[in-house]
């Protein structure tokens, strides 16, 4: 079972205690945006085989949203971090680079 540490309350939470919120760091475009921008935000997904960033909610716990960095081929967790950021913090990026040199994900690498 997947286990993620909630960065807010510190609990090591089992998957059954969490709900998955999909891809992280989606860029939302305001009114007047083009069809292509809206499509990208609404439907296009990174869906990588490897390093991935996601939103999760500690639903049956403290209730807070947070971010997780995870590998979709091994289910290894690189770390979890605050929901209040628009890209992964440096220590998470470093942790991933140590294990997956040369990884890429959108403009963050």
């Amino acid at each position: 079972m997947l286990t993620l540490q909630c960065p807010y309350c510190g609990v090591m939470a089992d998957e059954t205690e969490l709900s998955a919120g999909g891809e992280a760091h989606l860029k939302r475009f305001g009114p007047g945006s083009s069809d292509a921008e809206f499509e990208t935000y609404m439907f296009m997904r990174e869906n990588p085989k490897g390093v991935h960033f996601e939103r999760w909610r500690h639903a049956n716990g403290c209730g807070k949203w947070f971010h997780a960095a995870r590998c979709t081929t091994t289910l290894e967790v690189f770390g979890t971090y605050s929901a209040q950021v628009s890209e992964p913090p440096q220590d998470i990026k470093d942790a991933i680079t140590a294990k997956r040199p040369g990884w890429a994900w959108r403009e963050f690498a």
Partner: protein
Amino acid sequence: MRRYSAFAIAREAARYHTGWERAWASPEPKKKYDVIIVGAGGHGLATAYYLGKNFGITNVAVLEKGWLGGGNTGRNTTIIRSNYLQDPSAAIYEKARSLYETMSQDLNYNVMFSPRGVIMLAQTHHEVRGYLRTAHANALQGVETQFIGPEKVKELVPIINIDGPRYPVLGGLWQPRGGTARHDAVAWGYARACSAMGMDIIQKCEVTGVRRDGDKVVGVDTTKGAIDCDKLGIVVAGHSGVMAEMSGFRLPIESLALQALVSEPIKPCMDVVVMANTVHGYMSQSDKGEMVIGGGTDGFNNYTQRGSFHHVEETVRALIETFPMISRLKMLRQWGGIVDMTGDRSPIISKTPVDGIFVNCGWGTGGFKAIPGSGWAMAELMAKGYSPLANEFGMNRFAEGRFIDESVAAGVAH
């Protein structure tokens, strides 16, 4: 290709079965093909088959990174039905279902199509209303379905508990000509027919790159070297995102694990397929006597072909209420496949931003039933550049807001 027949069995019996030939050849790749199909699942093989059969295009290779039919085609619970809500879905799924009726004869390969009937249970008042609507839509689409009451459900499925307590059976959407087929046989039958037309099915050959000349595809890189082609069909289900990235475009797809499990074999007790979408579970009995059970997908992206155990637990827990007798069954095997989910839960059969590349994906949790119809449409699209069956399923529908929304109607969409 030597035909299979009662006579062939007698002939081989008389010579100790020494004369059976290999069902398909295992050639080395040529330098160039007119068409390369990536992915030897049901959809890829059916595409190749109809390219040959309907359009005479036989200089075709089907490249498969693992073994033929080892993806979702060999991992699914084989439910075949066409009682969808939207017109474009009804058209392609009903085309597929009708091709299943004659597939064994067409391919000279027994795919064990069993039109035993499929019931989708209505266990809430919303579901009753939803299925009444679907039954009316199906009547207009020429798809034979019927809304039946709880007594009729009980008559068709004696082992069912229609009284609840939590989710009583209020009725069901009944498709008498839905059913099941042998999944491996579908892949094997198409592979044999493709090989007989002179096509090359190349297993253990992973596509690792897509070669382009400007906006046009010119070939692929594989673990067996570079191979040139004029047209490329990407038919790789859960790996569609990976192939799209190699080709230089994006898809509105996420890959999730979907699981199934089977029980120990027992005597025949249920001769229809029953789906219970409110509680996320469905069940049928295989010819071997195993109860074949499936549920919903996991919530997060995953390429590991195994899902989370608690999903199995939830599915079985829900089904036990409706089928109390299964509480005593031992479960034998459990497995997962990586399904390709789109935003509107409908597939993509489409041209792409790269000239010569076509994509067929997004069948998600429910594409086994669609294999022949999808192959038919994809072949037509690749050969002629236009297919009426595929037309509404273009990938630009997301930008244009023309969704083919089956998520509400289908719930657990197998």
